[in-house]
């Protein structure tokens, strides 16, 4: 924690990276789309460089202080990706001629293989050949996710410079963190940009690998190793289904290229009409993959455990990359069901499944979040719940599209995408803010321990059971950490959906349209619609609870008194994201982001759009919807927070000041009286929620009964049969080597003898052949 001035100097190496995009544009005359491949390629070059340099220069002072153990390079490459993403986005928004519905950069061929067919008794090379290329596909969906991913990766990496490099436990292993971080980013960027399902899948798996590596960053901790395994295996379950889905798709369309499939999803290979029943299975399999990646019921169990990784990793997984991948995959399915343009009719059931899964997850996750005391776990369940909103919205959207109501469909899909944006920004910031809290509490704890060690002789008392993430030791931090408290407040408001702030616009759209689907089209949508409505209130409760437990009320332990917002690099990303969360959603909503994101034909930004948006949000024409909308606002903004305040609210201790808005909120929270809930907390329901509704236990029992014995069997086979054979080969080779070397006696006489033997053998052989 040296002088802050010097710290800024360290960012100088970033400048050349930032100059790449402008120089390509103005000096080399490139189009933005042509440069898109650099978004993936540059980090791909940086990532091994960080690992190798880190291996070589570990412990070196310059490497550690000047290059932050590779963090500067990582930040540079992500800055480059971000700048190119913004360049493309700019071209798109100002309507540069190169974008129509989507834009594809000519792929270059990667694998070309002949197809061998059996004709009669013969195997023959058929005339056609298959070619798998690498290309870039850019449309509005890509761009939104690309911007979210590059922007958040950049900020989180920036945050990591402060968070990771000041913690002694990470010393000399940060290059591993940054290397894997960059690879993770590559996975997300590549997946979003890929122009066919195969590459999408490859990058998808890269992300899976990196999530394993990063969650298990502290691999020497059993819990981290366990969490990493759990995350990897759970998402793998989804991935296997995804792979099956891709094979079915290939079977239907004879290609995995977006260009081929989306050209006309109703016509399969050889001009055959696509059967909706077959496509249903393909999409369902893909959806299971998405469920695994986005941690939805019933493959949600990995997400809370993923908190074992360092906090920037949580931010990365929850906001910027991994969980969004599943949403992206579902959004990519829109052309399949959109019967307005070439979609396949008869997939309403698929849309219902998506919406139901979303609704169930939203409600369940919010309920579990009620009882969590770990600040990051609350956020984890909130992620799960908010993603479920998006799935519900997408489900409703797919339903509308499949029955021909394409205006409503585009609207709700746009709203879902917009919610993705708002949630990513808010959640990225919430995680960074929670990281800030954890980091400073930890430091304060170390400080307190130093003091107590100095004055006490009690050597044996180590603080091994101290948990800096436990909200029960915090409280009153609003006075100690003004920036973090404000940031977290804004983030929470966005997640809750306080009117006019970020998430409100999108969440409102999702709930209203889900109800519209239920009321006008499909009664079976009632359950998801009801669940998401209830969840809105629950969100208000648990987010307020988290904020109050952390920042309001009197301090709950002596540590709080030693907390300072001191670490450099942490505040700046928080401030940037606070501004975006507070104003960005509002601004984008006014400019019609919802229509823009969902409707491929929408192409005007106008003042009319602003009025339309406001009217649509607050005063829809349909009375039922107006009722739903205002109910949502009421329960999310009033009922949930007030209940939370009654339990956890309270003034700061006298004599400390917080920033104005924050202190007003804290005061407000103390005015609703208080309520003792200890009885409720001991109830069976609370217990069930604490145990995460027993899903983890259920899975563990099932696995212990089925997979583990099977694994034992295959381990035995591997150890005794496969390894046995290999070990045998190895030991035979080694002993063979010794035997062979024994012949090389080192005596020239023996060498000549061997030559003579060789000569005679040659004679014999030549003789045998000629005779």
């Amino acid at each position, binding site marked *: 924690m040296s002088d802050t001035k010097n710290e800024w100097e360290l960012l100088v190496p970033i400048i050349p990276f930032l100059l790449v995009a402008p120089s390509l544009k103005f000096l080399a005359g490139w189009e933005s789309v042509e440069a898109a491949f650099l978004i993936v390629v540059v980090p791909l070059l940086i990532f091994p460089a960080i690992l190798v340099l880190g291996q070589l220069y570990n412990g070196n002072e310059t490497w550690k202080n000047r290059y932050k153990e590779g963090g500067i390079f990582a930040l540079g490459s992500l800055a480059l990706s971000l700048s190119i993403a913004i360049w493309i986005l700019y071209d798109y928004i100002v309507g540069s001629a190169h974008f129509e519905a989507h834009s594809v950069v000519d792929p270059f061929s990667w694998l070309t293989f002949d197809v061998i067919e059996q004709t009669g008794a013969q195997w023959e090379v058929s005339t056609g050949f298959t070619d798998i290329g690498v290309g870039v596909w850019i449309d509005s969906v890509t761009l939104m996710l690309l911007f979210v991913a590059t922007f958040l990766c950049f900020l989180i990496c920036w945050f990591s410079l402060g968070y990771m490099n000041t913690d002694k436990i990470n010393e000399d292993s940060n290059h591993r963190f940054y290397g894997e971080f960059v690879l993770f980013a590559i996975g997300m960027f590549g997946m979003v940009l890929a122009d066919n399902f195969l590459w999408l899948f490859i990058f998808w798996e890269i992300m899976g690998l990196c999530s394993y590596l990063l969650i298990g960053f502290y691999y020497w901790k059993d819990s981290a190793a366990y969490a990493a395994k759990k995350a990897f295996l759970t998402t793998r379950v989804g991935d296997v289904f995804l792979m099956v889905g891709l094979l079915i798709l290939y079977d239907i369309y004879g290609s995995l290229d977006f260009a081929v499939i989306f050209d006309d999803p109703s016509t399969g290979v050889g001009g055959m009409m696509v059967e909706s029943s077959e496509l249903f299975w393909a999409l369902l399999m893909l959806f299971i993959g998405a469920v695994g990646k986005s941690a939805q019921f019933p493959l949600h169990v990995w997400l809370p455990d993923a908190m074992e990784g360092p906090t920037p990793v949580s931010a990365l997984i929850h906001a910027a990359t991994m969980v969004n991948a599943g949403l992206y995959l579902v959004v990519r399915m829109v052309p399949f069901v959109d019967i307005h343009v070439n979609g396949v009719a008869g997939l309403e059931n698929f849309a219902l499944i998506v919406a139901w899964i979303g609704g169930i997850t939203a409600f369940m996750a919010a309920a579990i979040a009620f009882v969590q005391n770990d600040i990051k776990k609350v956020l984890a369940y909130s992620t799960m719940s908010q993603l479920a909103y998006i799935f519900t919205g997408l489900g409703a959207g797919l339903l509308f599209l499949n029955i021909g109501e394409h205006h409503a469909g585009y609207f709700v899909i746009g709203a879902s995408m917009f919610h993705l944006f708002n949630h990513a920004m808010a959640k990225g910031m919430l995680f960074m803010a929670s990281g800030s809290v954890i980091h400073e509490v930890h430091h304060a704890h170390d400080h307190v321990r130093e003091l107590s060690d100095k004055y006490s002789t009690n050597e044996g008392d180590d603080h091994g059971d101290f948990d800096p993430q436990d909200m029960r030791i915090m409280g009153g931090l609003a006075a100690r950490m003004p920036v973090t408290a404000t940031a977290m407040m804004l983030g929470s408001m966005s997640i809750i959906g306080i009117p006019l702030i970020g998430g409100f616009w999108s969440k409102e759209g999702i709930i209203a349209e889900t109800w519209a689907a239920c009321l006008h089209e499909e009664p079976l949508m009632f359950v998801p619609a009801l669940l998401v409505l209830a969840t809105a209130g629950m969100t208000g409760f648990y987010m307020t609870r988290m904020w109050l437990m952390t920042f309001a009320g009197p301090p709950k332990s002596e540590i709080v008194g030693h907390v300072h917002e001191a670490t450099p690099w942490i505040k700046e990303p928080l401030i940037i994201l606070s501004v975006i969360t507070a104003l960005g959603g509002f601004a984008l909503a006014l400019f019609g982001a919802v229509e823009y994101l969902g409707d491929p034909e929408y192409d005007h930004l106008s003042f009319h759009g602003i009025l339309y948006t406001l009217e649509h949000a607050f005063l829809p024409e349909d009375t039922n919807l107006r009722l739903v909308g205002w109910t949502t606002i009421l329960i999310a903004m009033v009922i949930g927070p007030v209940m939370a305040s009654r339990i956890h609210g309270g003034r700061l201790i006298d004599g400390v000041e917080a920033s104005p808005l924050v202190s007003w909120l804290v005061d407000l929270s103390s005015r609703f009286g208080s309520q003792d809930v200890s009885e409720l907390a001991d109830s069976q329901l609370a217990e069930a929620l604490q145990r995460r509704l027993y899903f983890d236990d259920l899975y563990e029992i099932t696995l212990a009964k089925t997979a583990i014995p099977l694994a034992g069997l295959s381990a035995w086979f591997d150890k005794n049969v496969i390894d046995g054979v290999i070990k045998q080969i190895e030991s035979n080779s080694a002993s063979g080597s*010794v035997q062979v*070397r024994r012949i090389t006696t080192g005596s*020239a006489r023996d*060498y000549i003898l061997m*030559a003579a033997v060789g*000569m005679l053998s040659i004679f014999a052989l*030549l003789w045998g052949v000629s005779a």
Partner: protein
Amino acid sequence: MSSIITDMDLATTQLILPELLLLGGIIAMILVPNLGDATMRIPLTRVRIPILIGGTRFASINNPKLPNQIATTVLALAFLTSFLFLGEHGEVGNSLQVDEFSRLFTLLFTAALFLASVATTARLPARPRASVPLDTDSTTHSDAKVNALIDNRRQVDFHILLLTTGLGMSLMAMATNLFMLFVCLELASLSSYILVAFHKETDVGGEAGMKYFIVGSVVSAVGIYGMSLLYLWNGSLDMANLAASWKGMEVIDPFAAIGVGLMLVAFGFKVGAAPFHLAVPDAYAGASSPIAGVLATASKAMGFVALMRLLLVVTMPSAGQASWLLVLALVAVVTMTWGNLAALTSDNPKRVLAYSSVAHAGYMLAALAAIGSGLADSDTSALIATAVVFHLCVLVLFKMGAFLVLSMLEAEGRGHRMEDLHGLARRDPVIATSMFVFMLSLAGVPPLSGFLSKLLMINGIVNVSAGTGSASAATALSWAQGVDPVFWLAIAIVLNSALSLFYYLRIGLVMFFESPDTENPLVHSPSLKMAIIACAVLTLLFGIGPLSDSLLDMVGSAVDSFMRS
């Protein structure tokens, strides 16, 4: 021989310009360091005329670095001229023929020797400021000074031998007469025996040189005996003549068969084929690393030229199996297996490289055997021969490069134990990365050039043999029973490559993951370091991309000119 001298004209001069340059270099090397201000009095007069040889040497040439500079320059010039005149072809005298094939090999030889000469600056450094030891010096100090003086004195010897090796090899590649071929081969071999034993002050160097010489001379004698039998049979050693007689033979004449067998022994020793390779690892381990590199690349290429002349020109029947197919196939399999097995547990990196060199000889012999199977048409034969020659060419980059890295270690008195490579990455990451590239290329990992050449060889073998399996075979097993035995050579190469990965990767492992005994930086030699980096970069560039295509084209047309001859 008189014909060469009398027929010498401008065109001929141009044809053999690289060889003339090497010869000029040898003469210059003898003369230049002896230039001085000596004078001679014309008898009966008082006029003294300077004769320039002897007397007090001129200050400007009294520089121990001069021989190295001459050798390096001459080799570079020879390389450039042979590159410029690559397309020229014609006869020189009765027994030499210049064509693209021989010029390509001159390129190869001079490149390898050039690299060796560059590496020598670090391995056998000339020290212009060496001084006579004083009485006050300690024993070690005065020993060091004496050694420096000795090193200065023997610069000339070393580099003359380097150039004669080059001259012998280069002429050998042009020979159309077996006798000429053998004489040139011996010129190169005898020079290399001395080079191996050059560091006679070390026990291992003297012993290795002696062993290499004894075994080599016995085997040479065997070869010459075989040649005399061939002469007895045919009455001429001209290769075209021999080839015609061989093709005209209905039943193989015992004289001819035994003669060829004996010559196979001699050439087998040169390429390091089992069981004649036993002295090879000793020689590599005893020689200085640059010389070991020359043995592994240029000398081996020389052996392969001789083998290809003997097998593909002289004794290849116009149709059907060659009589030496079985011999060569067996020798190939034994050689590669032996080499890889022996390398597996060796703890001396130079020995590992020596055994890997033996194994590579096995791969190339297997490819030659595929040509001898008679299953290949002329195009496929040319393709396989191209693969072999291409492999020999790129070996100069990565095998030589590996020895260059070792010579950097040797310059500090190390490099004989695997431990000396420990933590090389910590000491010099660039060198270690280059070494790793060389190892990967030796193992045949894509996209490096070692992969491309191995792929081409295996592809050639599979191409000629896989078609013999029954197309309608129901199972893989019945297909395997029907396929020509040559196919199994490809399998042998693949299995051996898998085995070899173990010791190649072990070198990479210890370089990157072990900690070094010393943190001192490597010996400071910018030219050698540049040479190593250039080798590593070219190893990649010749493996994939336009450069590899153009080298393949070059080799392809050289092989065409060879096949036509």
